[in-house]
Each structure stands twice: as C-alpha cells, then as structure tokens.
C-alpha cells in the first residue's frame, strides 16, 4: 500500500510566490488608479442607486466591463420614452446614461437637447394633456431648465468640451433669450480646443443682442487684433463683417476719432 505525502514543498513555493507578488501588485494597482484619477478617468462606481436603476442583466453587463454598451442600450429607451410622452422617464434615463458614462459628450449634449428643446417644445404644444396655456408655459420653462442642468453637469464632468459650452450658449440664446450668458458660453467655447472658428464671432453678436454695446465693441476689437493680416485676407467674409460691426459701434458709442480702429 502506498501513502500519499502532502506536497509541503509545493505549497510553500506557491505561498512564497503569492506573498512576493501581492504587495507588488497592490502598489502597482494603486499607482494605476492614481494615474487614472489624475487623468480624470474616474470611471463609474457601482453605487446602490445605480444598481437600483439597472436591470439585473444590465448590472452584469456593467460588472463585466461593458459599461458603454449598457449605456447605449439605455439610451435606446430614451427614444422610446420620448415617443410615449414619458418625459420624466426620459429625464431619469438620461441621468442614468450620463451616470454610466460621465465622460461621453454625446449623452450630455443630446440629453440636454432632448429635454430643453424637444420636451420643452412638446410641453408648449401639448393642448390635449394640458389645456391651461399658463401651465403649459410653466412646464415648458421647467424642461428648459432641466436641459440646462444636464448641460451644466456635463460641463462639470467635461470642462474641456467646447461642444457643451456651445450648446449651453445656444440654449441661453434661443430658448431663454439670455444673451449675456450666451455670450459668456460662446466665449468659453471658442477658447477650448477643437472649437469651430465661427464661435469667435458669436460672443460679440450676443453682446450686441444684449445691448451691451461697449462689451460688444471690446469683443469685436479683440477679435480684430487677434487676427493676423494674413488671416484677415484669408477670411475675407469675416473681415467685412468685423469691420462693419466695429464701424457701426464706433459711431454708436461716439468713440473719438483718434481712438477708433478705423478712423476713416
């Protein structure tokens, strides 16, 4: 009869290997986490609140590292909710999507647009569900501010996104007629990387609409001096618009001839 010997030597080797690796692993992982936090890749923590909002299948999807796909599928429900007039559900689903992917500009941008434009306009026109026109107006404003809130939270999570600043500017301009805040948003948008060149002029236009002639004049002048002669020639249509705006405001503000950009 043979007796099996317990493989002590092997167990000791395994223990040594694991003991040697474990602290090294811990330090390395902590380093990676710190790097990711520094680079603003916070990801998403599976909180109880988030878990309660997701179905079991979607939770497993998130835990399996398929957060983006889960968020995309949740987003499909936003469209379904919109078609069914379930606006509060839309709001909740948009919040869920942005919680799952706080760094996705598309979700913040489209989410804000859905609430501040689509839902808000639908609330204004929904005579069947809300016959009271004042109430409809109130509802419309409510959804505009809901959309604005989505944009603002989006900017908090993605301060370098020109797109969200631009969309917020458009919202202030077209839905709230708040041109001063629109000017601030367009200005911030134009300073960020990747911003389209036309945004540089929008801030000055908004200040004109806000009847802040002095502010608009300063903005046009700054833009004029920022452009090099070569750029002025290249953007001929711009040049004419900027020149005419400056001339118009110089006359309106009675700027002394010697202080004018275009004295003649």
């Amino acid at each position, binding site marked *: 009869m043979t007796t099996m010997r317990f493989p002590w030597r092997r167990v000791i080797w395994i223990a040594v290997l694991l003991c040697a690796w474990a602290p090294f692993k811990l330090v390395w992982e902590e380093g990676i986490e710190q790097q990711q936090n520094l680079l603003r890749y916070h990801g998403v923590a599976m909180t109880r609140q988030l878990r309660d909002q997701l179905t079991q299948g979607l939770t497993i999807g998130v835990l399996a590292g398929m957060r983006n796909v889960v968020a995309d599928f949740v987003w499909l429900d936003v469209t379904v909710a919109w078609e069914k007039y379930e606006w509060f559900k839309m709001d909740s689903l948009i919040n869920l999507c942005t919680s799952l992917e706080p760094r996705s500009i598309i979700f913040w941008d489209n989410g804000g647009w859905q609430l501040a434009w689509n839902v808000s306009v639908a609330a204004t026109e929904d005579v069947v569900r809300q016959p009271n026109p004042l109430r409809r107006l109130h509802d419309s404003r409510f959804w505009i501010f809901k959309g604005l809130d989505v944009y603002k939270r989006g900017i908090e999570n993605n301060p370098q996104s020109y797109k969200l600043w631009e969309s917020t500017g458009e919202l202030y301009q077209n839905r709230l007629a708040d041109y001063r805040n629109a000017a601030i948003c367009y200005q911030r948008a134009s300073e960020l990387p990747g911003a389209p060149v036309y945004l540089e002029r929008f801030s000055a236009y908004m200040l004109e609409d806000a009847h802040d002639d002095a502010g608009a004049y300063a903005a046009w002048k700054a833009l004029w001096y920022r452009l090099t002669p070569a750029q002025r020639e290249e953007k001929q*249509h711009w040049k004419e618009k900027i020149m005419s705006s400056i001339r118009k405001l110089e006359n309106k503000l009675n700027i002394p001839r010697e202080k004018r950009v275009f004295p003649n």
Partner: protein
Amino acid sequence: MIGSLQRIIIIARNTLTEAVRQKVLTVLLLFGVVMICTSSFFSQVVIDQQIKFVKDFGCGAIGLIGLFIAILSTAQLLPQELHNRTIYTILAKPVRRAEFLFGKFLGVVLLLALSVALMSLAFAATLWWQESQGIAATKATYAANPHWESIPDQVSAYHHDVDAIVTQAEDPQLVEAILLLFAKLVMSSAIALVISTFSTSFIFTVITTSMIYLVGHLESTARDVWLQGGAQVSFLQSGFLEILSLLVPDMNSFTIVDEILDGHAVPWWHTLNLVGYAAVYTFVLLALSELIFRNREI
C-alpha cells in the same frame, strides 16, 4: 534552452491547429464578426450617435466573444488531453510538464490574437462604412440649401462636421483600446489555466474563471474599502477584502477603454503600463499553474 523553446512552439502550433478546427470556437468567432458588422444596422435608430454605437458595440463584442474564446479554449486544454489520453504520449517523450503547459497556453494566446485580429478587421470595415454613411448624410443635410457652397460660413461648418465624423471614426487610439482588450483576454486565459491545473471539471473551470473575471471588476472597490474603510469595516470583512485585493487582478483598470471610445486622449505610457501589468500578472499566474501542475497526479 533553444530545444525547450522549440518544443513549446510545436505544442503551441498544435494547440492552435486543434482550436481552429473546433466548431464551437469557429461559430463563436463568426458570431462575433456578425455582431460587429450588424452593429451598423442597430445604430440606425440612434440619431447622431451612430459611430459611437458602432465603436462601443464593436469593442464590446471583441471583449465578450474574446472572453468566451479565452475561457472555453483554456478550460478544455487539460481535460481534453486527459480525456483523449494524448497527454501520456506527450509527457512520455522528453517534454517537461512546464513546456507542455506553456506551449498549450501560447497556443491559446495565438488563437486569441487571431480572433482579435479578425474581429478588429470586421470592426474597422464597419467603422469605415459608417463613416462614409455619416459623411454622405451630412452632405445631404447641407445640400438642402442649393446655394450652401457659396456661403463661406456654411462651408466652414460643413468641413467642421465632416472633420468631427472622421476624427471619431479614424481615431488612432482605437489601436490602444484593442491592445488593452487583448491584454485583458490573455490575463483571463491565464486565470483559467491556473484553475484548470487543479480542477477536474471543465464546467468548474469555466464558472470559476467567469466569477473571478466579474469580481475582478470590483477589486478596486474592495481595495479601497479595505485600505480606507477604517472602523466601519469589521475584522472579518477586512480580512476577506484583503485576500480579495491581494489575489484577484484589477480588471476595472482596463475599463479605460471606455474613455478611449468616448474620444478622450489616453497616453501611450498609461496603456503600456496596463499592458505591462497584465503581462507580469500573466507570468505570475503561469508560474503558479506550473507549480500546481508539476506534481499533479495524471
């Protein structure tokens, strides 16, 4: 040393050939390619998000199907050899157990590389198609105004929109994303190998590896609670979290792929750090599996 390397390569080649001939893995791979290609049709319902959807779905499919291939192919490596009794013939020759094990693992890594490469090709083709569709749709929108090409601001806005589509679709960082997914798959495969060296059941290996994979995504949370939990965490809880944090790999770090898919810049040094982590972890797991397999009764 060279002889040993040659034996490992021969075993790896055979493992790859056997794996490629298996219908299950071929069907899985085919399913992955179909999933990626059809993501383009699903995405039609999402206005303005087509390319994002294709990117998310494509990388998701590579990760998921790759995981199935990694776990299933590794889990059956040893049981199949034992069942067919081919392991006795191989080990009767001058082949060390370590060489046999590493050769088998290398075969799975090659299979994974092949699968990921094929799915990536399908992904690139789908993205290219979606990009051309997006550009055509943008042009059609601007063409609603027949004089748009004579309006400089419209032309500028059109070029900006097209550039945005091209930047999103032809993002060179997608290479980093695929590399990270591959590294994660190799690590998952190594976990399956360790379990299969002491497990006697294929199902046990598959289920346990899947569980470790899922728990791996919560390892960073467990580590944070263990290290910063303070008095709120009991001694027993702390002990459990400590074991979890020290043994289970941090899979959650690899979700940085999501940031790449969202279009945020991830520096190469960070990607390489993660790939290095996966490589060292895989090496440790291989050493562990060799230690366990060395004295296993066959």
